[in-house]
């Protein structure tokens, strides 16, 4: 492998990792605070991608329609998530793990079919938005601007979330509820409201991930399944509930898939699972998590 190929592979690994970071971190946050493993997270990501397609195509007469949809699509997903949390998930917190699992599974089926009803089964595409069309050329290196933009997004969202969790009142409340829900409740924190907020935040992030992915890959039914499993791999590697873990896990996952595909193309999918298994077996709480 020459240097040029190496750099390209590195960049594409990081850019895949950074998009999926947004989705995985939402899954991880929801698990950390609500203690619910949200299987519908992939479906919410797909919903975000469809909403992005919908908004940007119906606003296509306006300049910067994609950027507007980048604002609206995640909000729509967050709103949907808020409704789901309020009417359904809220009844499940004291239930058994299996029942929560099946509820979120039912949501996958419902969201996927609603997307089919609304937008059909054909795949939809969005043009790469202005001003990120084309590719950056640096000597013999060619890399799409849009992917470089995605690489930039990852750390931005990481820092933003870190600030939110560690430097704001809401973040303090979320951490308190995560740490001890009864005690936080006793101290006057409105725990159900915090749950709704965290779930909506997770959904917003999944929707954002979907909207950001839309210009670089086709929006179609079934795009949710692969992402969900990738997210599982990432949050397990990093540690369920850990923000920095999700970031690190996404980077590792992106790089392992990018380089794995060059070494043994056929087993590229398996690398992620093997990594996940090794982590679960030797360090179930993940690289950055804390043992329970």
């Amino acid at each position, binding site marked *: 492998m020459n240097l040029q190929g190496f750099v390209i592979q590195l960049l594409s690994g990081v850019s895949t990792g950074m998009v999926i970071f947004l989705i995985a971190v939402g899954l991880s946050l929801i698990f950390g605070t609500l203690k619910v493993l949200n299987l519908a997270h992939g479906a919410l990501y797909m919903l975000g991608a469809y909403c992005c397609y919908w908004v940007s195509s119906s606003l296509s007469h306006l300049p910067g329609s994609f950027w507007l949809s980048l604002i609206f699509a995640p909000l729509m997903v967050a709103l949907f998530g808020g409704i789901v949390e309020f009417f359904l998930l809220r009844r499940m917190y004291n239930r058994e793990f299996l029942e929560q699992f099946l*509820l979120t599974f039912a949501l996958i*089926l*419902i969201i996927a079919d609603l997307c089919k009803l609304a937008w059909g089964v054909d795949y939809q595409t969005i043009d790469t938005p202005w001003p990120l069309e084309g590719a950056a050329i640096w000597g013999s290196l060619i890399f799409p601007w849009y992917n470089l933009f995605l690489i930039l997004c990852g750390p931005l969202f990481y820092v933003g979330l870190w600030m939110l969790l560690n430097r704001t009142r809401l973040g303090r409340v979320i951490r308190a509820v995560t740490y001890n829900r009864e005690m936080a409740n006793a101290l006057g924190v409105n725990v159900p409201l915090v749950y709704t907020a965290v779930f909506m935040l997770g959904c917003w992030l999944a929707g954002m991930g979907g909207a950001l992915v839309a210009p670089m890959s086709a929006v179609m039914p079934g795009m949710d399944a692969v992402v969900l499993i990738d997210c599982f791999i990432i949050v397990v590697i990093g540690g369920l509930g850990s923000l920095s873990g999700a970031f690190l896990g996404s980077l590792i996952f992106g790089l392992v898939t990018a380089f794995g595909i060059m070494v043994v193309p056929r087993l590229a999918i398996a690398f992620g699972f093997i990594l996940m298994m090794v982590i679960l077996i030797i360090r179930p709480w993940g690289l950055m998590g804390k043992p329970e």
Partner: protein
Amino acid sequence: METAMPKTNWMIRAAVVAGLMVLALLPVFMSRGSLSLVNEMLILAIAATGLNLMLGYAGMVSFGPAGIYAVGAYTTALILYDTQVPFALAFVAGPLLAALVSTLVGWFCVRLTHVYFSLLTLAFSQIIHTIIFEWYGFTKGDDGIVEIPIPALLEPIVNYYYFSLIILCVCLGLMWMIVNSPFGKTLQALRENPGRTEFIGIHVRRYQLSAFILSGFFLGVAGSLYCGFNKNVFPDYADMMKSTEMLVVCLLGGIYSFLGPTVGSIVYMFLDKIITRFTEFWPLALGLVIIGLLIFLRGGVVGFLSDRIAAARHKEREAPSDVSS
């Protein structure tokens, strides 16, 4: 209470015998298409009851039963397709290999609890799926193995139906014995409180591993049986949708009763048949059914019915005392 118990047992026994008689007579007045649907239901019932050994009795939520199921199906399929080994041996090899793989997988999985256990079972089943999908030279990958030869005797659907029915009875009988043995009671104790069970001197992991292996064996039986039924096997036998289908079936019927998964598979097949007749959006309907079930019908169909029966009996006993006072 003492007088009430035998009455319930008697009712259940009568229902089981009646159910078996209906199943045995079905081929007489059922079309071949419907019969093959019932056959599929029987196989699903074996898989779901097998899964429930681990799920309902031992409280271990596996996300990957389909991986083990596919091991059973592919073992039988490959032996029948590539060799001249008799059907009986190929049929036995499926469950045995499934149990063997379960031993390996379970050995790692029982070290974890809760969501970590579930995620590791998912990872293993995905690995099995990847192996089946990618090892083209051995498993024919995406194309699946088609037109698997089975003995001429089992070729007609009616004969295969009776074969499945016998296997179902044997499996359910075995599992009934297992869950009512001291071993089965220990598993239930373990489900209720692993910590305390360990205090009374039970080797928790060993019991969980045994449940995992037994579960895997019966999942393998279902896989092998399905392989002979369908005569084709495909990688999606091992995928997450299949696993979830089994979990839904268990929950639909009720995971805390022995016949729950069997009832669940009947209800599931009926729903599938009825809903797909009216709409192409079967997943949407299934999703709504699951949500309705979780909110209104906790404990599944069997749990719901037994609650009703208990309530009715309670009333019955209350009534005379009201009169006397």
